[in-house]
C-alpha cells in the first residue's frame, strides 16, 4: 500500500514561450505579422478598422459582416461558399467595436489559392437585394427567439444601464432598427469604410510572398475616424425586469473597472478570479456548492476599446434571486473587510499562472495572445510581467484593491425573472 495522504510536490509554471513573429509593413501601410514556424493548419486573420464605433447607423456593421460573402460583381453567394468549402476552408467573420475581422482556416497547401480568392471577394463585395432581405428576415426571427431568453434581456439591460442606450456599447438592435436598415446603408458602409480600413493581418505561419502583393492591393485610408458618438450616459442602476413564466431568473451585475494598462490590473485580476473567476471561487463555493441555487455563477473583466467592465452573471432558481443578490453583496463586503488566507491566495496564484500557461499552448493560442497585445497596445513582455506581478502580490494588496475598486454604490444590478 502506498501512502495516499502524501500530497505530490508541484511546481508553479511561470515561464512562457517567446513570441516569434515577423513584422512587415506593406507599402500601403498595412501591418503584417507572421509567426516564423511552419504550420500544417493555417489561421490568418484580417483586421479591418471599421467596427461599430465608426458607424453612424445601428446595425450597419453587423449586417455587413454577415453579408460580406453574399456576392460580388461576378459571383453569387453560393459560388463563393462552394469554392471556400471545396478547398476545405473555414471562415469566421466577427464584428467588434474597433474591428471587423475576417479569419480563414485552411490546410497549408491550399493557402495561396484561398487567400487569392478571398482577397478578390473582399475587394469586390456587391450585396444582392435578395440576400439582404433574407438576412433581415432571419435577423428579425432570431431576435424574437432571443427575446424569449431571460439571459438576453439581462445582458441587454445591463449594457444599456452601464453605457446608455445611445452609446455603441449600450445599444441593442430592435425590430424597428432592422426595418430601418437598408441595403444602401450596408453597401455604402462597405465602400466608404470597410474597403480602406485594412489595418493589420496576423498569421500563425509564414505566408507565401505572392500573398503580400495581394494584401497591398487594399488602400489604407488613415483619415477614417471613429464616429463622434454621444458620451456615456448611465441609466437606472437597479432594474427588476418581470418575465412571465420564467423558471429561472437571470442576474447580471457589474460596474466599470480598470483596464489592462493600469498598474493595479494584476491585483484586480487576481481579486476577481478569487471572487468569481474559477471553479473554486467564492461565488461558486457559496451560491453553487453550498446553496445549490445555480448551475454556475461567474465574475470576469470584459475589455472594450479604452474601457472595461466587471460582470457578475448567473441563472438562478427564481425564488432565490434576491437572496443570491444579497449574497453577492456579502461576498464583496467580505473581500473588503477580511484579509484572505495565505492558502487561498496561493491557490488562486497557482491557478492563474496555469491559465496563462494553457492560454499560450499551441500556435493558434499564441496568435490569440499576440492579438491581445496588438489590440491593447501592450508591451511584448506583457504576460511575462503579469505573471511576475501576480507572484509578488500579498494578502494586503488584495484587500486594498477590493477597498479601492469594489464600491457597491457603483454596482448595476439587473434581474430578469418572475416576481
Amino acid at each position, binding site marked *: *500500500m*502506498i501512502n*495516499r*495522504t502524501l*500530497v*505530490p*510536490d*508541484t*511546481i508553479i*509554471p511561470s515561464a512562457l514561450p517567446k513570441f516569434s513573429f515577423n513584422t512587415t509593413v506593406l507599402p500601403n501601410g498595412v501591418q503584417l505579422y507572421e509567426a516564423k514556424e511552419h504550420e*500544417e*493548419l493555417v489561421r490568418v486573420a484580417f483586421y479591418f478598422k471599421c467596427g461599430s464605433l465608426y458607424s453612424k447607423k445601428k446595425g450597419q456593421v453587423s449586417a455587413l459582416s454577415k453579408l460580406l*460573402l453574399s456576392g460580388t460583381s461576378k459571383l453569387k*453567394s*453560393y459560388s463563393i461558399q*462552394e469554392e471556400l*468549402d*471545396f*478547398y*476545405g*476552408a*473555414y471562415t469566421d467573420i466577427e464584428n467588434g467595436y474597433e474591428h471587423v475581422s475576417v479569419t480563414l*482556416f*485552411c*490546410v497549408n497547401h491550399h493557402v495561396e489559392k484561398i487567400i487569392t480568392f478571398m482577397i478578390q471577394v473582399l475587394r469586390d463585395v456587391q450585396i444582392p437585394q435578395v440576400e439582404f432581405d*433574407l438576412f433581415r*428576415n*432571419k435577423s428579425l*426571427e*432570431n431576435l*424574437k*427567439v432571443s427575446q*424569449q*431568453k*431571460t439571459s438576453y434581456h439581462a445582458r441587454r439591460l445591463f449594457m444599456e444601464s452601464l453605457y446608455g442606450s445611445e452609446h455603441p456599447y449600450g445599444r441593442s438592435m430592435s425590430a424597428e432598427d432592422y426595418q430601418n436598415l437598408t441595403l444602401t446603408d450596408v453597401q455604402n458602409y462597405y465602400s466608404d469604410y470597410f474597403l480602406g480600413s485594412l489595418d493589420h493581418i496576423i498569421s500563425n505561419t509564414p505566408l507565401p510572398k505572392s500573398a503580400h502583393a495581394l494584401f497591398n492591393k487594399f488602400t489604407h485610408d488613415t483619415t477614417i475616424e471613429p464616429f463622434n458618438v454621444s458620451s456615456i450616459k448611465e441609466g437606472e442602476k437597479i432594474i427588476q425586469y418581470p418575465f412571465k413564466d*420564467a*423558471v*429561472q431568473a437571470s442576474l447580471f451585475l457589474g460596474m466599470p473597472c480598470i483596464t489592462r494598462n493600469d498598474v493595479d490590473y494584476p491585483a484586480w485580476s487576481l481579486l476577481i478570479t478569487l471572487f468569481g473567476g474559477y*471553479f*473554486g471561487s467564492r461565488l461558486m463555493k457559496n451560491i453553487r*456548492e*453550498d*446553496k*445549490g*441555487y*445555480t*448551475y454556475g455563477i461567474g465574475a470576469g473583466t470584459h475589455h472594450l476599446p479604452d474601457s472595461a467592465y466587471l460582470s457578475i452573471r448567473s*441563472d438562478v*432558481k427564481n425564488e432565490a434571486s434576491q437572496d443570491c443578490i444579497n449574497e453577492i453583496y456579502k461576498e464583496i463586503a467580505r473581500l473588503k473587510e477580511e484579509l484572505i488566507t495565505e492558502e487561498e491566495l*496561493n*491557490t488562486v496564484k*497557482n*491557478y492563474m499562472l*496555469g491559465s496563462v*500557461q*494553457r492560454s499560450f*499552448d*499551441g*500556435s*493558434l493560442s499564441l496568435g490569440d495572445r499576440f492579438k491581445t497585445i496588438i489590440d491593447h497596445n501592450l508591451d511584448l513582455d506583457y504576460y511575462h510581467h503579469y505573471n511576475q506581478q501576480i507572484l509578488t502580490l500579498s494578502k494586503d494588496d488584495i484587500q486594498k484593491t477590493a477597498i479601492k475598486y469594489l464600491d457597491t454604490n457603483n454596482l448595476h444590478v439587473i434581474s430578469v425573472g418572475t416576481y
Partner: protein
Amino acid sequence: MLAYDTFTLANGLKVIHHLDEKTPLAVVNILYNVGARDENESLTGIAHLFEHLMFGGSKNAESYDEPLQRASGENNAFTSNDITNYYVTLPAENLETALWLESDRMFQLNLTPKTLEVQQGVVKEEFKQRYLNQPYGDLWLYFRPLAYTTHPYRWATIGKELSHIENFTLVEADSFYKRFYNPSNAILVVAGNVSFKSCKELVTKWFGEIPEGEINKNTYPQEPLQTEPRRLEVDKEVPMTSISLGFHCGARSDDDFYSLDLLSDMLGASASSRLHQKLVKEQQLFADIAAYSTESLDRGLFIVSGRIFPGIDPKMAESAIWEELTAFKNEIPELREWQKVVNKKLTVLKYMELDVLNKAMNLALFTHLGDTNKINTEEAAFLATSPQSIHTLANQLFQESNCSTLVYKAKT
C-alpha cells in the same frame, strides 16, 4: 500520424500514453464505461448526477478541485448517453497530482448527504437552465421517446423528469459507484510532455492497488426495426415552428459511419450544403436548417432539423425537405461535391491534432470503440468513401417507414 503506447494494469485499467514534446502540459483523461443508457427508466439522469458527485472529495483528498488548482490545473467532465468522461490539464511537471486525485476518487470516493443534496439542487438548476428556460430547449425531450421505443436512448442524459433527480438516494449512489467506477471499467489516457517511463511508473503507483471490479457488458434492449412513420406535433410558445426528422442509422463504430458523416455534410453542414442552398437561400422557407448524426455507440439517429419562417405552411416545408432527400436518393452526387466535403473533413482532422486535450479525449474514445489505432485511419476511411457509397446509404436511410417527425409548432 499520432504515436501512442498502451499497457494494462493487473486490475484491468487500460492505459494509453501519447508523447507530445511541443507542449509544456500534460492531460489526464479518464473515460468510464457508463452513461445514461445504463440507467433504469424509473431512475433516469443519474449517470450525469453521479458525475457531479465525483467532485465531492475522496478519502485522502477532502476536496478534488482545490489541490488541482494549487497544481495550476483545470478540469471538467461530461456525461453522454454512452459514456462519462473526466479530464484534467496541468503543467507536465505536476502530472502526479492529477493521478493522485483521479486514483483516489476511483478508489474511495466520499459520498455524503450534503454533497448529494447540493448537487441535486445544482443539477435541477442545470435542467432548468438548459432545457426549460430556453426556447426549443426541450425539443430533444420530446424527440427521443418518439424515435426510440425500447432502447434506453429514449431518454436524455439530463433525465426524463426532475423527480428522478430528486429521488436518487445515497444508497443508490453508492451501488452505482461500486458497479461502474472501477479500474476494469475505465480507460486512462496520459498525453503531453511526459515520457512513457514516468507515465507507467506513476500510473502503476497510484492506480495499481485499486481492486478490480465488474466490466460493463453494454447489453441493452435493442430497438426493434421501425416499420411505419411516427409523428408528434406539439404547440409551444416559440416564434418559429421547428421541424425535425430523425432516421435510424448505424453506430459510431460501423464501417459506413464515414459515408454517413459525409452525407450529413453534403445535406446540411455548411452554407453551400444542399438543404441550406435550396430551402433557406432559394425557396426561403427555412430561417435555418441542419443535418447531422448523433454518433452514438449503439444505433443512432440521422437528424434533419430546421426552423421555418412565419407564414410558411409546415406541411409544405416538410415536403420540401423530402424533395431534397428524394433527389439525393435518385441521383449519385457529383465527384466535386464529394471532394468538397472530404476536403473540409481533412481540415477538421488537422485542427483536432493541434490540441493535446482533444487528442487525449479521442484516444480514449477510439480505445473504448475497440481500436485505438482508428484515430490514425480516419483520414483514409473518409477517402475510402465514394459518391456511390453515400448515395447507397441515403437510399437505405431515407424511407418514410424509418422516419420520426416532430413538429414543434409556434402558437399563433
